[in-house]
Structures are given as structure tokens and as C-alpha cells.
């Protein structure tokens, strides 16, 4: 393995952050100028949104189910088993729905974007696109960013609902709770701030996942091996960045909306 000096490493890191920031900024600025690639955006929305639906539904259902199962033991100690619905709903809507859906979409789509764009880079298709007078950030990045941010919003809503259904299934058939009681506590304890937080996060996570995926794809070097490396880096970086951003956004929103 080639050793790199700390100064060069720092320079490369700063340069990478600069390049990523420019790409992320351009992906938004492109929305306000022509041409806009609506057909590409819809195609990406289909790939990302509809394509991710099965894994999001499965993840959401079993997360809600296991949440009900795990918390029931603790709640039972305090004689508060009836609060299962409330606990599942708050956990899913505020945190687990957005984060787990984000991680699933990151694993599936950040890798897909990095490998697709990386392959285009190594086969000179990106250069060809530039040579044909098309801005790749407009044609390739912005549609993916818009599609991911939008679809992750809706996927999270689905995940939350399916998670609540998973919690209900466990409460009803394993814990023997009354269905009406479960849904009433689950619904009544949800406040505007919980829903707002739970729906702001996926939009932001979608932006992170798509920009990171596109960044690693478009900076691919070194042939097919490079494509593999970019794919892995895209999933790791977007997942870690998503969790880091989740902490800071939660802290910020709690400070702003809950005081």
C-alpha cells in the first residue's frame, strides 16, 4: 500500500470536501435554470422509490414488530403495557422510520448511483456527455437528488405506517393488547413536532445519499476496480454522514421546537 504524507492527505481531504460541496451546491442551483430533465427525474423516482419499496416495507414492519416485542418486557415491569402503541409510534415516526429507511435506500441507491456513474466515467461516457454540450450535473446529478429527496419522504411515511402495523401485530397477537387501545395511544401521543421532525429528516437524508453517491461515482478513478471502490465508499460515507447529520438535526430541532 502506498504511504501518503499527512500534508498531502489533508490537502486531498480538503479538496474532496470542496469538490463535494460544489457538486451539492450545483445540484440545487441547477433547479433554477434550463434545461430541466423531468423525464430523467421521473425515471429515477421510479427506480429509487418503487424499487426500494419492498425492502422499506419489510424493514419497517419488522422494526415496529421487534420494537413492540423488546419494549413490552420493560413496560410490563411498570404495569404500562398499554403504552406500547405510543412507544412504537414515537420511536418510528421520530427516529427509526427516517433513519432505517435512509440506511436501506443508502445501501441500495447510493451504491447504484456510484457504480452507474463510475462506469460512465471509466468508459468516457461522462466526457462524451460534456463533449456533446450537456452538463452532467444537470442531466445526472440533479434528477437523482430531487428523486431521492422526494421519494425518501414518501418511503418514510410508508415505513412509519408499516412499522406501526408491525407493532400492532405483536401487541395484538403476542401481547394480547386491545387493537383500539394500541392505535389510540399511537395516534394521540403524536405531536406536530414529532411528525415535522420525522418528515424533515428523510428529505435531508435523501439529499445526502444522492449527492454522496453521485460524488463518488463521478470521481471514480482506476477502471472496474475503481468502480467497486467508489461503490463501497459511497455506501459507507453516506450511511455514516446520515447518522451524524441525524444527531445534529435532532439536537437542533429539539432545541428549536421543543422549548
Amino acid at each position, binding site marked *: 500500500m502506498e504511504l501518503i504524507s499527512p500534508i498531502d492527505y489533508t490537502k486531498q481531504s480538503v479538496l474532496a470536501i470542496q469538490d463535494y460541496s460544489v457538486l451539492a451546491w450545483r445540484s440545487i442551483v441547477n433547479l433554477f435554470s434550463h434545461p430541466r430533465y423531468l423525464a430523467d427525474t421521473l425515471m429515477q423516482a421510479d427506480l429509487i422509490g418503487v424499487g426500494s419499496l419492498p425492502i422499506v416495507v419489510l424493514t419497517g414492519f419488522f422494526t415496529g414488530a421487534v420494537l413492540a416485542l423488546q419494549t413490552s418486557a420493560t413496560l410490563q415491569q411498570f404495569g404500562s403495557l398499554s403504552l406500547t402503541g405510543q412507544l412504537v409510534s414515537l420511536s418510528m415516526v421520530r427516529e427509526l422510520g427516517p433513519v432505517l429507511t435512509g440506511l436501506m435506500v443508502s445501501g441500495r441507491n447510493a451504491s447504484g448511483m456510484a457504480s452507474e456513474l463510475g462506469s460512465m466515467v471509466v*468508459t*468516457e*461516457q461522462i*466526457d*462524451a456527455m*460534456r*463533449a*456533446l*454540450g*450537456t452538463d452532467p450535473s444537470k442531466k445526472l446529478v440533479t434528477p437523482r437528488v430531487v428523486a431521492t429527496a422526494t421519494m425518501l419522504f414518501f418511503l418514510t411515511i410508508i415505513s412509519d405506517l408499516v412499522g406501526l402495523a408491525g407493532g400492532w401485530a405483536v401487541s395484538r397477537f403476542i401481547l394480547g393488547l386491545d387493537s383500539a387501545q394500541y392505535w389510540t395511544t399511537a395516534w394521540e401521543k403524536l405531536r406536530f413536532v414529532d411528525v415535522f421532525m420525522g418528515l424533515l429528516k428523510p428529505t435531508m437524508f435523501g439529499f445526502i445519499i444522492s449527492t454522496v453517491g453521485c460524488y463518488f461515482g463521478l470521481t471514480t478513478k482506476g477502471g472496474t476496480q475503481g468502480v467497486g471502490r467508489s461503490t463501497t465508499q459511497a455506501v459507507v460515507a453516506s450511511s455514516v454522514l446520515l447518522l451524524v447529520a441525524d444527531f445534529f438535526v435532532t439536537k437542533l430541532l429539539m432545541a428549536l421546537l421543543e422549548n
Partner: protein
Amino acid sequence: MSTPLAPSPAGALAVEPVPQKVIVFDNVSLAFEENRVLEDVSFHLEHGETKIMLGVAGTGKTLLLKLALGLLKPDRGHIHVLGNDVTAMREQELFALRRQIGMVFQESALFDSMTVKENVAYRLIEEGTPEADVEARVREALRFVELERTIDMFPSELSGGMRRRVAIARAIITRPDVLLYDSPTAGLDPITSTTIIELVVKQRDVYHTSALLVTHRLQDAFIMASHYFDKQANRMRPIEKGQQVEANISFLILKEARVIFDGTAAELARSRDEYIREYIS
């Protein structure tokens, strides 16, 4: 060969007259870290001229094409293309200029998720050309390269030579002012190579498009210098002695990051430079 592409007003992008010197490289230097790949390179391409760039692998021939397109920026020097200093232009400004230039990449660089029709029509679709016009012009361009039957196929279903011909169709569909060919015959069998060179000669002699052509294959260069395209017969023919036909062609040879020859075929043949003599022998 089939019927040449009919002139299409919608495809004529250049509103302003094309300058006499279409491409000018002025003391251009480029290095990747410690590795100097181009050193004080200067040359120009006249309107209607085809310049063949020769040199062993790694002498920076492909980089010259990428620099002309503004896909790379030089460390020093200036490059003027169609009167614009591409070294001073931002990426966003370059997109409009690039629409007046056609580029054929060495490995074709066709969009593999698009059909042949979508690849060839790419620029027209981007420009918002009506669907009926797109279909007609794509068929015309594909007829020019004799691949009309492949219109609904994907690049992965084509042979290397066919992909190269589709790339030529994609490059010429909007009738650009300049064409850049990056080793269009590399890795192809002699018969397919001749077909590709015939297309390049046809484009040169029928439309008088200015072109830079990179190649390793001397025989391609010699064919281009010694043949012309006969519009009546619709095929390439050798230039006979005494015939009043002149191939508007010149040669540029690179060696160790520098230009060591820039001149006509006759000047190349007369050159006393030992390296050049050995190279062309």
C-alpha cells in the same frame, strides 16, 4: 457507400462565420504531477483542413483533443477554438461551444443504456428538435455510416467497428464546424479500418469539415493523403498522377511531449529528420 447526408438547416449551428484558423494552440504545456505530457505545443488548424496527429503511444495526442474541447485545462498557454479562448472559459460557457464540435472517442463512448437511435439523436433531443425531424435525421446520419438497420439496437449488440461508425454518426448529425477523431481505427481489422477512413475522407471532401485526427496507424494517414471521395461514384478513389484533386491534409508529429513536425504530406516526405524518417518508413 450510401447517399451523403443532405444539408440540414436545423443542424447548422454556427451562426457566425467560421474563422480561417479554426483551432489554434499557442505554447500549450501540461503536466500531471511531475510528468510533463505536453511542452510548448503550438500549431493551428485551417478551415476545411484535416490534420493528422501522429506519434507513439503516450505522447499526448488524445490530450490535445481533450484540451481543444476544454475537457482539460492546460497549465500554460492558450487554445483558441472557433475564435474562443477555451482556456479562459468556464465549464458552463464551454457547453455552448462544444455543440459546434463533434468528437469521436477512441472507445466510441456510446451511452450504453440508450439505443443507437437515442445515442445518435442525443444532441437533437437536447436541442428540443421535434420527434419527426429527429427520426429523419437519425436515419440520414445512420445511412451515411451504413448502419440504418441498427437503429433500435443497443451498443452492446454491435461490433467494435459498428460502434465506431455509430459514434461518427452521433458526431456529425448536427453538422459541426470541427470534428475531432481520437484513434477512430484503433483495434479494428484492416477492412473495417478502411471503411472508417472512407467515412472520414467523405466528411472531409463532401462537407469540407475541419478535423483533427489522432492515429497510430500510418497506413490510415497515407490513405487519407492519397485518396479523395468521388461524390458521383459515392466511394473513395486514389488520387491519380496529374489529377486536379488535392487532399486538404496536413501532419503533426509529437515526440516526447513536443511537436517535432507540422506540415504537408510533401514536406513530411522530404523531411531529413532521422526520427521522422524512421517513423514513416
